[in-house]
């Protein structure tokens, strides 16, 4: 299923060649649309030439409908494509500065490259300015680093924001774009003195718009794959990992990773809040199973060296969580073998750890009585990794993230 891991799959030279070809298509698309001409671009802001809006929004809705249809048909894994993480206020302030730069300079960085490539002198000066601006940013960002990292919302999408299905959001955006196109054509004719399109052009444009609208209605009806449907597609392969106990890691291995500086460990405690409050491993995040789905998008944006370990009192709940996370393509997910009970056997009970294949009893009750809810304020919540020298079969294999780790901005 797309997208593909180009670099490991093809090697760097070939992968970079593909990027070169995609860039070639991008440059061509911009040039044939007239984006090398700054007066044409600036005309957008005087309603004389609405090319920017028309080309950009046509590009967005065409790509969007194709992306979500591919996802609906199971051809493309939406969770593995790069969705720009939201840093709301830096984005808005940066956007306003860019708006000013647009009306003053007449280009944006991409269009200035195309202008430069077609020998437009203003494009050359703009690109030179853009490099200068980027240089100033690199030199000054340290003075407002807090702001630059503020209002972080992670992989936050419009369907999440509005609580609507993706198909409906796609339909509404297509509808909005078509209304804007209709208005843009009228504005151009009024302010820019452009002639009304010929009858045949008008008919073709309307037909294209209607096709796109119909495709988005069909998408809305068809829907996006649910977690259960995604799981169904991979269940055979993944259930085998569970049966082989390839993904259940011993408490001692988890502890070693917690103290491994190269790996970020996210202990996902999927028990209810009461259990979490009674006792949990230090640094564990409480995400009750019912809330797991909403936490998935943020897991997708964690760095490549993140290890997720699902934890419950035994393994049943944690295994359900593992299935959900695997279905949603969260990388490097494991289960704490025997759960909190086994952890306490190992670090609080003084029992000799039993053989790894029999640590689970299937009973999700906490076997250890606590007088009070101690949370992580218990010696066993944060054991000294050097005190015990426990043997275990290492199972964690940190895999390269499947999706891209940065957008066109890295």
């Amino acid at each position, binding site marked *: 299923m797309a997208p*593909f891991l*180009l670099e490991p799959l093809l090697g760097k030279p070939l992968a970079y*060649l593909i990027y*070169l070809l*995609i*860039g070639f298509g*991008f440059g061509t698309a*911009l*040039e*044939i*649309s*007239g984006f*090398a001409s*700054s*007066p*044409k671009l600036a005309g957008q802001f005087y309603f*004389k030439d609405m090319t920017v809006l028309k080309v*950009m*929004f046509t*590009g*967005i809705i*065409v*790509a969007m409908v194709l*992306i979500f249809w591919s996802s609906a048909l199971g051809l493309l894994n939406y969770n593995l*494509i790069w*969705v*720009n993480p*939201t840093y*709301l206020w*830096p984005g*808005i302030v940066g*956007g*306003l*500065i*860019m708006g*000013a*730069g647009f*009306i*003053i*300079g*007449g*280009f944006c*960085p991409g269009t200035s*490259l*195309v202008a430069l*490539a077609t020998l437009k002198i*203003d494009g050359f000066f703009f690109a030179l300015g853009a490099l*200068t*601006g980027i240089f*100033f940013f*690199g030199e000054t960002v*340290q003075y407002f680093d807090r702001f630059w990292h503020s209002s972080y*919302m992670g992989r936050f999408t419009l369907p*999440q924001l509005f609580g609507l299905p993706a198909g409906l*959001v796609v339909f509404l955006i297509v509808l909005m774009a078509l209304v804007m*196109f209709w208005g843009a054509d009228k504005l151009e004719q009024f302010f*820019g003195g452009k002639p009304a399109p010929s009858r045949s052009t008008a008919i073709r444009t309307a037909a294209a718009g209607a096709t796109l609208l119909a495709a988005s209605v069909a998408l809305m009806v068809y829907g996006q794959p649910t977690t259960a449907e995604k799981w169904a597609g991979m269940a055979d392969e993944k259930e085998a990992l569970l049966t082989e106990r390839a993904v259940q890691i011993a408490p001692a291995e988890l502890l070693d990773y917690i103290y491994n500086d190269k790996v970020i460990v996210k202990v996902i405690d999927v028990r209810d809040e009461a259990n979490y409050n009674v006792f949990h491993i230090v640094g564990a995040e409480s995400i009750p199973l019912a809330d797991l789905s909403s936490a998935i998008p943020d897991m997708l944006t964690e760095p490549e060296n993140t290890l997720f370990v699902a934890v419950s009192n035994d393994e049943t709940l944690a295994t359900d969580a593992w299935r959900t996370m695997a279905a949603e393509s969260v990388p490097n997910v494991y289960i704490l073998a025997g759960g909190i009970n086994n952890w306490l056997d190992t670090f609080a009970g003084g029992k000799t750890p039993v053989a790894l294949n029999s640590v689970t009893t299937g009973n999700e009750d906490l076997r250890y009585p606590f007088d009070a809810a101690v949370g992580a304020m218990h010696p066993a919540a944060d054991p000294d990794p050097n005190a015990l020298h426990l043997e275990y079969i290492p199972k964690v294999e940190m895999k390269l993230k499947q999706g891209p780790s940065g957008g*066109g*901005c*890295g």
Partner: protein
Amino acid sequence: MTTLSPSQSLPADTAEQARSLGRTRRPYVNSYVGGTVLGIVLFLAFFITGNGLGASGGLNRFLVFFEDLIAPGHIDRTPYLIGMAGGNTNPLDDWIVFLTLGTVLGGFASGWFNGRLRIETGKGPNISNRTRWGMAFLGGILMGYGARMARGCTSGQALSGGAVLSVGSWAFMFAVFGGGYALAYFFRRFWN
């Protein structure tokens, strides 16, 4: 050197002017056709690579490459730059660099094929070339600075993030258009 004014993208003064490198200047394609081509390229980018399109990231890396030649010590002391070129990391060893190179090549090839490869300055009719160049440079500085602050430019954020429904990208897009429209009145002399 000729100038392009907004209403007439094809100044048909002389036969010589209408030709560039022996090729006749063709008109731009219909905006919806251009947009559809753009959308298909964007979709293919996501489908094949999982990444969208971008431009400012590539420019950034070219810049850092030159900075690293001139002042490698400075790169290693600036947290923002270390990731791209700290130590022995080559800032050009990244997919976005090749995407950016491809963009320039694609623009060049299309410009040549369509007879639009010509040394000229695009500007409003009432300002000199020098003024236009100064404004382009100034606007470029703002664009470059803003693009890094917003973590992406019009293509990397608005276009790519917009198509995959990122909330931040849509907020950013409205901010860009908002900023442009808010100031358009004050700069009307430069474009009209």
